[in-house]
């Protein structure tokens, strides 16, 4: 068993979990943060993307134990009270989601992308979202949302 202490969405958490527990399972099953989704088991889909110490991470590729001491932000931690994060706002404004299952991962990936590259070109957005799959939208409105968010966060 592994003893893990970490900060999730600003709250200190401590749990004892099986060594093999993935970060995504810690978040979903132990902390009840089901906004982070699991869409595959080969690290391709990006539904489970969260921020670990400020960087986008596919939380299915990381053991919970590796996040010991880390600061984690999930989709539940993006809005500040009633104030949506600009990326969240852009996704709803641009109709960049349909079923919504990939959306938390898309939003987390986008927020990290814009942190590294505040004004990405279309090509840079395609590249930046290569690790996130969406089956509903055809990505056109997702790319629009990334651009709107970049504009808002200027």
């Amino acid at each position: 068993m592994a003893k893990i202490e970490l900060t999730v969405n600003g709250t200190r958490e401590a749990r004892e979990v099986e060594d093999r527990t993935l970060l995504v399972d810690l978040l979903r099953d132990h902390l009840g943060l089901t906004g982070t989704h699991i869409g595959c088991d080969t690290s391709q889909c990006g539904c489970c993307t969260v921020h670990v110490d400020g960087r986008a991470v596919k939380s299915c590729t990381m053991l919970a134990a590796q996040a010991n001491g880390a600061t984690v932000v999930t989709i539940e931690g993006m809005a500040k009270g009633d104030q949506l994060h600009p990326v969240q706002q852009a996704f709803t404004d641009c109709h960049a989601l349909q079923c919504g299952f990939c959306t938390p991962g898309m939003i987390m990936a986008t927020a990290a992308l814009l942190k590294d590259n505040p004004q990405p070109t279309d090509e840079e957005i395609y590249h930046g979202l290569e690790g996130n799959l969406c089956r509903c939208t055809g990505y056109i409105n997702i790319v629009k949302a990334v651009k709107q968010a970049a504009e808002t966060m200027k």
Partner: protein
Amino acid sequence: MSEKHAANRREDLRLITGRGRYSSDMNLPGQLHASFLRCDCAHAEIVAINAKPALKRPGVVAVFTGEDAMAAGYKDFPNLLTFTNRAGATLIKPERPVIAHGRVRFVGETVAMVVAESALAAQDALDAIEVTYKDLPVVVDAEAALAAGAPQLHTNVPGNLNFEWDTGDAAAVEQAFKQAAHITKLKVVSPRVVPSPMEPRAAVIGYDTATDSYDVYTNSQGIIMMRWQFAALTGVAEEKLRFHLHDVGGSFGQRSAVYPEHGALMIAAKKLGRPVKWVSSRSEGFLSDSHGRSLIMAGELAMDRDGKFLAARYNFVCDMGAYLTPTGTASHVRNPAICTTGVYKIPALYANFRVAMTNTAPIAAYRGAGRPDIAYVVERLVDQAAVDLKIDRAELRRRNFIPLNEFPYKTPTMGVYEASDFNGCLAKALKAADWDGFAVRREAARKRGKLRGIGLSTTIEGTAAGMFPKDQIAIEFDAQGRLEVFTVALSQGQGHETTFAQVVADTLGVDAHDVTLRESVQGKNIAGNHTGGSRSLVGAGSICKVAAQKLIEQARPLAAEALELEPSQVEYAKGVFSARDGTKSVGLLELAKKHAGKNPHPLNLVAEGSVGATFPNGCHVAEVEIDPETGVSEIAAYTACDDSGAVINHAIVEGQVHGGVAMGAGQVFGERVFYDPASGQLLSGSFSDYAMPRAGWVRNINISEHPVISKVNVLGAKGVGEAGCTASLSSLVTAALDAVRPLGIQHLDMPLTASRMWQVIQQAQQAKVK
């Protein structure tokens, strides 16, 4: 937050903040976890299963095998195809025990189910189950399966042929072909795909001993269809099946049916007296989710000297995989038969369908469900005919469109088309796409070393005719007097909460935020159709309008009472009942609140209606650029002009077109399920090997609308969910073919992967050198 969000989709707020509730988020107190052992061979006898070692593993509570499935009698799946062929024969339905019994027929079929205290414990125990197989010969290709001497999958399906059905007039077609000046023939495939909604399948099923009934939490396309199918599979009465449905992470037909795992979980929940949860991994999904498409289609089109179509003949081989799913056969046989004539006047038609079993995952409905496939073969034929006759592709279409004055048009097979303006739609699309100016863009591409082609499709699809004869909508007022609308439809991303509320609110003249939609709610005794087949706006959505109109009339006497007037003296406008002389008024919602708490609320009502088939159609124009050095294709431009009938929410309709076209692009350029022909092993079993469309595949779509209002429903809507898929397969493939035709390439089959395109280009160039 709510104010800024107000103009956007109603469902978005919970979904962008991580508060959506999907199947894998559901947990019941005391639940156990299931994991399935799936066979690793494509066709084998199960000689022996020893589950005992698994029972000794930590946390394991029980192991279930095919014996349990047979004891429960869970082996006969319902099927939506109920008609007979001309000889009176029905579809032959092989048994499919919910856990394999005696034999396995595709890689990934369930052989045993471990139930344990945790999901990890259940998974860990799978490798302790000992199964002895005796391999049998394998066939994965549908034509090969129908050939003499092919391995036989089911004793009651001789020659692996479940059903042969034909429609149309073979003799009339034969006669027309004899008189034809030209006949175009081709054979195309619609390759097998994995629907791959982003949410994997999942279910939690509980059993209540006291009432001998079940609680089911699972992904679905609607309560009525699901309940009926569960009952048909298990023999459990519908009233003993309670469905608790919630957010669904996409479906595209893949969740339209009950699955074997559902039945297995019911067996376990009843036997163990505790709820049992199962969440599929994506790898399991590739093996065992229903797959889509997989048709081999031959077509012939006869025409006179001027390119006027005289007759067409089709021969379909429909791969169903190893077993029949509830929706697969109807998708591959009934749906294509409705639109064999495409948008063209073709006086004589004949189509033959053979339904075949192969050692592959079962096939079910997938976005369009046969509609994109028939549209694809029709459009490929028309395109090829234009090339053969050296007539402009748009002009050949114009000569053969069903003219406006011939609607409703009864096709020679199954369809009766509603009015559409194919010519107008084509003209609008060609203008938007600058069809006439293409030569300049081709030349510019050539200078960059790229091969650029243009393609178009003019397609139509039959939608809306539901399985259940009527759709009902309930309007109810809650304890606070707030307006709720109930439907049995269920969004899997379509945005019903926004659109349906908008329909009710617009009809009443109130704010959309005063209307809340509740979908597929357990215990609401209303009828109707599940969400699928581009149907829900046309069916449930239009009955929302009927219900709202009924509400106004039902409220009028109460308003009159409140205003102390005769009902005839009360007028209604913009959510308010007023005296004719304008002296006093009461708002509808205010009136409802006055009666809040009464049981039942006097304004509660159920409205219903029957909605017939309607026919969305459109013209899509694609431009594709291919790099001859790498074979990589790129969509350089895409224009879509659709007749979806009346549009309620343009943003949502555009989103559906985006998604549908991207899905078509996936099938055209990348997606392909590959089973090794010798072993039947699935070689494309993850997103690493299966090319899902990614950001940038479809960069922009130039969208316009050319609506001809439907008369089969009060909204005038025709539906849009599948239009993008239906139109894009042929527009994209013919654009690619147009790009490489100058090299002497006459035929292409999906998927146009870089390696395949590179190969055909290399071969063509080498042939030219020789």
